[in-house]
C-alpha cells in the first residue's frame, strides 16, 4: 500500500501491491445501468499473476558448504599460523639468548681489555714507559710551568698487580674458594662436594702443578686432660 501511495498519481495503480500487473482501468461506461444505483460490490477482475522468478536451491547449499569449508580453513590457517608463530617465537628467543650470551662474552672481553693490569701490560709490550715528570701549559699566557722531562727508556713502572683470574680455572681441584666459603660457615653443596670427590684424583696432579697446595697446619691435638673442674689431673685409675 505504501508503495502504491508513493506512486505518482498519474500512473495507474497496480493490481496487487507489489505486483507489476496493472489494475484494469475501471470503465464506468461498461456498466451504465448501475451508474445511478447504489455502488455495487465489484469483483476484482481476474488477471494473470506472473510467478515470482524461481531461484534454484543449489547455490544456497553450495554457499553454505563453502562457508563451512572457509570457516574450517580459517580455523586451520589461524591454528597453523599460531603454532608457526610459537616456533618463530621459540627460535627468536633462542636467537636472543645467543645474542645475549655473545654480547656478554664481548662485554667481558672489553672489560678484560680495559682492565688497567692488561692495559699496562700491553703498553709495556709496545715499549712504553711511565712518565716521571709533568708540566702544565697555560693556554692564556702561553707559559709552561712545572718541569716536564721526556720519559727515559728503561724507566720501571710501579709494582705489578696480576690481571683478573677469569676463565682460567679449568682445573677441578678442590679449590681454595671452597675452603674459604666453608671457613665462613657456608655449607658447600653436596653436589659440589661429590663432584670434587669424583674429580679430585684426575685433577690432583694438575692442581699440584698449578697451585702449590696450601698447607693447612693440622690443629694441634688436644692435650689438656679432663680436669673435672679441678686444677690438676686426677690420678689415673688402674684398669680392672
Amino acid at each position: 500500500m505504501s508503495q502504491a501511495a508513493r506512486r505518482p498519481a498519474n500512473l495507474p495503480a497496480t493490481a496487487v501491491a507489489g505486483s507489476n500487473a496493472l489494475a484494469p482501468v475501471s470503465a464506468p461506461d461498461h456498466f451504465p445501468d448501475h451508474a445511478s444505483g447504489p455502488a455495487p460490490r465489484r469483483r476484482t477482475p481476474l488477471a494473470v499473476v506472473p510467478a515470482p522468478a524461481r531461484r534454484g536451491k543449489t547455490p544456497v547449499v553450495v554457499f553454505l558448504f563453502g562457508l563451512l569449508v572457509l570457516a574450517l580453513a580459517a580455523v586451520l590457517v589461524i591454528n597453523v599460523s599460531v603454532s608457526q608463530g610459537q616456533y618463530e617465537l621459540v627460535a627468536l628467543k633462542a636467537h636472543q639468548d645467543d645474542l645475549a650470551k655473545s654480547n656478554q662474552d664481548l662485554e667481558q672481553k672489553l672489560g678484560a681489555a680495559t682492565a688497567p693490569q692488561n692495559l699496562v701490560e700491553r703498553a709495556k709490550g709496545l715499549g712504553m714507559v711511565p712518565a716521571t715528570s709533568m708540566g702544565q701549559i697555560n693556554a692564556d699566557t702561553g707559559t709552561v710551568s712545572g718541569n716536564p722531562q721526556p720519559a727515559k727508556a728503561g724507566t720501571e713502572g710501579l709494582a705489578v698487580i696480576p690481571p683478573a683470574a677469569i676463565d682460567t680455572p679449568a682445573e677441578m681441584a678442590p679449590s681454595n674458594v671452597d675452603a674459604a666459603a666453608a671457613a665462613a660457615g657456608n655449607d658447600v653443596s653436596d653436589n659440589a662436594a661429590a663432584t670434587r670427590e669424583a674429580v679430585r684424583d684426575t685433577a690432583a696432579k694438575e692442581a699440584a702443578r698449578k697451585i702449590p697446595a696450601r698447607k693447612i697446619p693440622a690443629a694441634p691435638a688436644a692435650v689438656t686432660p679432663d680436669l673435672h673442674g679441678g686444677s690438676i689431673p686426677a690420678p689415673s685409675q688402674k684398669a680392672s
Partner: protein
Amino acid sequence: MAQTPKKPARSRSGTLQAMGRNRIRLGLCAMLVLLLIIAGKLFLIQGLDAGGLAQAAEKQRTVVQTLPAVRGKIVDSEGRVLAESIVRYNITVSPVNNTDADTYQHWNATTQKWDEVARDDGLRQLSGALGLPFDAVKKAATGTGNFAYITKNVSPAVEAKVMALGVPGIYSEAVSRRVYPMGAVGGNIVGFLGQDGTPLAGLELTLNDKLKGTPGSRTFQAGANGIIIPTAPVETVPPVDGQTVKLTINQDIQYYAQQAAEQQKKHYTAQWATIVVVEAKTGKLVALADTSPVDPNDPGKSAAADRGARSVSAVVEPGSTDKIITASAVMDKGLMTPLSHVLVPPEYTVDGQTFTDAFPHGTEQRTLAGIIGESLNTGTVMSGQKLTPQERYDYFRKFGVGQKTGIPLPGESPGIFATPDQWDGRQQYTILFGQGVAQTPLQTAMVYQTIANGGVRLKPRLVDSYTSADGTVDTPRQEPGIKVISPQAAQQDRDMLESVATMGDAPDVKIPGYRVGGKTGTAEAPAEGGLSGYTSSFIGMAPMDDPRYVVAITVQRPQGLIYGVTQGYTFNDVMGQVLRTFDVPPSTTPPVKLPQFYK
C-alpha cells in the same frame, strides 16, 4: 481342537507380554538406578565437593617455575664494571654412557657425511676444546656412574664448541657466575661471593639487599607428559633484577694507588700498606688501596687477613699526623696562632711525665708552625696542655676519632679512643701527638678532609648512586657535614701543613706546578705483648689554594731505620696522578712559607 491350542497360545502370549513388560520395567529400573547413581555422583562431585576436586586437579596440573633475578652490577665512578653476573656452563658427563660408546657417529658438515669417530678421538677433541689434558678428561669420562663434572665455568663460546662435537654422554648445564673483570683492582672493596652465591665480603655483602633483586615466577598448567596446556592461563611475575651500584671509586686511581702501596710495601719489606684518596669537598672516596689485594674471582688464593679493606678495619696509632688536631684545637679556641712563640727545651717534663723528640735539639725558639713543621712532641705537649683533657677529648671526637665513619664495608672499626676519665697521667699528653689513641687509616684521612674542607667533616662516601632495573637512578644525598673548627682555623692549619713541605721536615713532598701540604707521621705499632715496629704515614692535600684531594698513605712495620722511611715520593706519585686524572688546574698563587722559628 482349534480352540485348545489357541487358549494356551493366548495365555502364553499373555505371559510373554507380561514377561516383556517386566523385563522392560526391570531394565528401566536398572537404568534409573544407574542414572540415579550417576546423578548422585555428579551431585556429589559438582554440588558438594566441586571446589576441592577442581582445586586438586588444578594443583596437579599447575607448575610454578622460579625466574631468577640477575644480580646487579657494581661499577666504578666512570661506569666501568667491577662485578657482574654472567652465564657460564659446567660441562658434565655421564661416564656410563660415554664409556659404552667405543665409536659414535658424528655429522660432518663439510663432507655432508656421517663420520665414524672413535671414543678416544672424541675425547681428545673435547680436551682440546676445553684446554684440559686428555688424560684428565678421559679419566673423568670413564666409569659406571651416571654423573660427573668434566669442568666448570666455561664460556658460552666454549660450550657451543663442546656441544658441537656431539661426544656421547657429554652435557652442559648453565649456571650464573659472578665475575670481576678488574680482578684485584678494587677487589678488597667489591668483595666476593661464595660458591653457592652467598655474599661473603665487601660491598657484595653489605649491599646485598640492593644487588640481589627479587626473583619472579611463571605459573602454567601442564599435562602428565609435561606438555604445557596452551589454552590454560599462564601467569608470569617478571623478576626484578638487582640494582646497579655505582661507586665513587675511580678504577684508574685505584689501580695506581694499589700499585704505589704495593711498591712501598716491597720497598720497605713492610707488613702492609694502605692508600686512601678522598675528594675533600664531597667526602667521596676515590681510592681505597690495599696491599696483597684479593682477586674476587679466586679469593681462596689470598690469606684471610688480606681479604678485607685494611683502610677501614686496621687500627693503628696515627702518631704525628694527629698533631694537627691539637694545633687545630688551640687555634680554634683562639689560644694560639701559627706564629705563636713557644720556647721548646730539649726535653719537656710536665706532671712527672718527660717528653723528648725524635731528634736531639737544644732549646729552640719555635713558632707553632715550626713545631708542626719539625713534628716536635715537646712543643705539641706544651701547646696542647693549654686545653683541658675534656676539650682535648671533644676535639678528637669532633674530628671523628673513636667513631665509625659509617662506610658500607664490613668489619669497620671505630678505633680505640678512651674517655678522659680513663686516661692515665701520660696518656692525657701522648694523645696530643697521636699516641695512646688508635684510628683506622680512613679516620685519619677524614681528619685531613675536614681541614681541606674549611673545617667541615663530611661522611666518607663509597656509593655514588643506585640504578634500578627500570633505569631510575637513586643518588643518596650527601649528609650535611659536622663543623669541627672555624674556617679561619682550617686555613691556618693548611698554611702550617704547606709549610711542612716548604720549610719543615718533608722537603721531598712536591708536585711541580701545584702547591701541596701535608704531615708525616710515625708511631710505634702495638703488637701482642707490647709495641713492635712502627707505623709510618703521610697525609697530604693539594692544591693548597683550594684543596680538592686528600691522599693518606699508611705503611705498617716498614723495616730498616725508621728515620730513613719516607712516604713523600709515593705521595707525590699518587697525588700527581690524581691531579692529572681529574684535570685539576695548577696553582696560581705563591706557596705559603711560615717561619719555623722566631727571633
